[in-house]
């Protein structure tokens, strides 16, 4: 309550409730993005997005060029996959993703002769001729086409195909495009560094996305704990019409769309699973996605690499890296991160509030992987569930005003109707409830399990 008062006094955009986990961004926030060149084999999954899986269009033991399209789907709700490096494919296999799914994938061994990447790739990625570029000069349909052709999906983690998100819907007009540069998860700094080192493509990408979906203004939302990013983006956006930078309070989950839209615009999105930002005239894209949109439209660059933060107390050398998709975590942690420390116990595919633990280090980096957090014994919480004492901290801290303990206990006792009555499906799984629970009940996990079970039962026709 006092924190909210201070936020409004300082003019920061905010939403009620939420929690304040320790930032732990000191590990990597000052590390400039460095190029990562893998020497080992890449494992490129054919599903790196929400939607239909892609089918391979290359064969095993075939030479592929950098950026060549290697998989696509015929339905619109998909995004093609491109070769991250020049090399040779191998026989198709299965890959385990960070979220536990097993999907078809193809291994690619980097070529030993010749350039596996265009020269100065990092400079090209961060730079580019955007100063003179006029986003409104490109047709919206062409923008969406190029976005799809380059395989751009939501890089904030949801990996929704961006060309579908930006498609105009006459029933639901859009007036504002929000570029989400909040990065509210502790430890992660990839969006931060991207905005500091490459702000102009982020701004231009936002303009292109706005033009595509019909929005008349762009708001770039950045948390107050990134003053250098705020300044860099402000400078890049100076002189470009219709763009404002909204400085947001540093709290979790500031970057969640159901919290950021109310904070920046004061509009409430109807509850999940049906309600979306477009129901209130808003489209939101992650800043790395905006960056990829600009690269796709202006440079025709396919999505082959992304900035990944390798961080946490459990890596020897935290930093931010431009990593080709398909790089195995083991190689990334060893060669980029300098290896795991003695007391490292968890490797997360993401941040500590919502990131899943990876079960082995063969998991590849995919489009949605913004960061790898390696936590030590001391840094991580240990869950030993004790009885709920009805302290109401979870109810008081849930950003969506749900009653997590009631939902979780309904799920625990398999009462799916009761759980649904408590609006279980509105939960965004942010983890605030479990974070504050003094009884160490894994509330978010119970609710997640309940939602999965409800989905399963619907799919089975129950």
């Amino acid at each position, binding site marked *: 309550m006092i924190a909210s008062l201070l936020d409004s006094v300082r003019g920061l955009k905010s939403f009620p409730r939420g929690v304040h986990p320790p930032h732990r961004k000191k590990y990597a926030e000052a590390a400039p993005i460095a190029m990562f060149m893998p020497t080992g084999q890449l494992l490129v999954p054919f599903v790196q997005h929400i939607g239909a899986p892609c089918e391979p269009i290359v064969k095993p033991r075939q030479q592929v060029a950098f950026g060549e399209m290697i998989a696509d789907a015929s339905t619109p709700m998909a995004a093609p996959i491109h070769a991250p490096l020049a090399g040779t494919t191998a026989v198709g296999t299965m890959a385990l993703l960070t979220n536990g799914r097993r999907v078809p994938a193809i291994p690619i061994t980097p070529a030993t002769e010749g350039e596996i990447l265009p020269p100065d790739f990092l400079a090209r990625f961060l730079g580019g001729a955007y100063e003179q570029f006029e986003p409104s000069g490109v047709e919206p349909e062409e923008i969406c086409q190029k976005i799809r052709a380059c395989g751009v999906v939501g890089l904030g983690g949801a990996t929704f195909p961006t060309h579908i998100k930006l498609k105009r819907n006459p029933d639901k007009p859009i007036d504002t495009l929000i570029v989400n540069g909040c990065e509210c998860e502790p430890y992660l700094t990839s969006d931060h560094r991207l905005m500091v080192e490459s702000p102009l493509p982020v701004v231009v990408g936002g303009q292109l996305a706005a033009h595509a979906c019909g929005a008349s203004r762009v708001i770039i939302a950045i948390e107050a704990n990134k003053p250098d990013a705020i300044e860099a983006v402000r400078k890049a956006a100076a002189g470009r019409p219709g763009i404002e930078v909204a400085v947001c309070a540093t709290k979790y989950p500031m970057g969640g769309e159901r919290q950021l839209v109310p904070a920046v615009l004061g509009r409430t999105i109807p509850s999940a699973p049906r309600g979306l930002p477009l129901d209130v005239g808003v489209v939101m894209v992650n800043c790395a996605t905006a960056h990829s949109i600009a690269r796709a439209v202006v440079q025709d660059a396919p999505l082959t690499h992304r900035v990944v933060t390798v961080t946490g107390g459990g890596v020897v050398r935290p930093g931010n890296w431009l990593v080709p998709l398909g790089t195995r975590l083991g190689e990334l942690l060893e060669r980029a991160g300098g290896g795991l420390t003695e007391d490292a116990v968890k490797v997360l595919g993401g941040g*500590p509030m919502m990131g899943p633990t990876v079960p082995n280090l063969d998991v590849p980096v995919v489009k949605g992987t913004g960061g790898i957090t390696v936590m030590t014994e001391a840094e*991580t919480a240990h869950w030993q569930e004790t009885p709920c*004492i009805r302290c109401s901290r979870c109810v008081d801290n849930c950003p969506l005003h749900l009653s997590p303990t009631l939902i979780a206990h309904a799920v625990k006792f398999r009462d799916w109707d009761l759980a649904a009555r408590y609006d279980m499906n509105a939960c965004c799984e942010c983890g605030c409830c479990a974070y504050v629970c003094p009884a160490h009940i*894994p509330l978010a996990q119970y609710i997640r399990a309940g939602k999965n079970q409800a989905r399963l039962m619907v799919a089975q026709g129950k």
Partner: protein
Amino acid sequence: MSQATADSGPGGTAASAPQGRELLVSAAPHLAAGRSTRWIMFQVVGALVPLLVMGTVFYGSRAIFLTAFTVGACLATEAIANAIRGRGQASLGDGSAIVTGMILAFSLPPGLNFYMAVIGGAVAIALAKAIFGGLGQNLFNPAMVGRAFLMICFPAAMGVWSEPATVFESLSEVQANGVSMDTAEGGGVDGMTMATPLQADASYLPTLRALFVGQVGGSLGETSALAALLGGLYLVFRGVADWRLVASTLAGAVIVAFIAHWAAPQSYEGPVFHLLAGALMFGAFFIATDYVGAPITPAGRWIFGLGVGVLVMIIRLFGAYPEGFMFAILVMNALTPVIERVTIPTPFGGHVVTS
């Protein structure tokens, strides 16, 4: 949580993955705010210490022994209940039985026989907590159930209130005057069937300062509003006591006291007197704030507290008992499930819409 080895998988020539290392696999979130149930309970225990200190100043070592016997009975009963239920004794360490024992002890007459206090503590845990399923499952406040049981079984003994020593008398003088009162019948000269300030007529009314500091008769928790306030405010600022419950309880009591005093000033004292007299401070900060018996919804907590405050004052002014906290809490505990059900908050984007 399960453990998996992090060795290279099939086809893996990415040789740098560490071999044979174990990583933990568990569900997000992987951070926690750091407060545990045990921390909360022991914060309450600490906040009750000022009251125990004041109780010892006025009633001597009896206060400590009474508390110790009650807490011991609670712990022993919980241990027996755990054994009967086949659960381990881990729950003894979470501090909740100690809190129940202390709150019960502080609501008893200081001169009560120790065996009665033991019975009270045992009943509190056995009938109001263990039978419902242990921590977090009880419908009624265990300390208040224990006290109610004692009131029914030993009405005379529960009606005896002792005159405390003044602050300036030394403890030995006080003991020489028989402050080690045993029963209402025998015992020392100070075992009067004297009323508490709430029962008294106008000739006895203590000064407000005396009420605040504690030199009046009553249970250990009733005497010093100052000590209760200190401990209680500490809990509120630490985030342990829910300020909504405290504020609504005090507000409910003050409103009724104000109306009564305004309507008939000769018959009823004003709100300030009532705030400082009796167990209102102690009850508002320590009994009404018991999480388990209160609704978990924001609106529900306000309603619960208001109900407690209003009932306390109505029982005090118009009821047969001098202090109404016990019944007020038990009645509102019974209403908690209903209050909770009708105050479930609407989700931020509205209820889930199913097709």
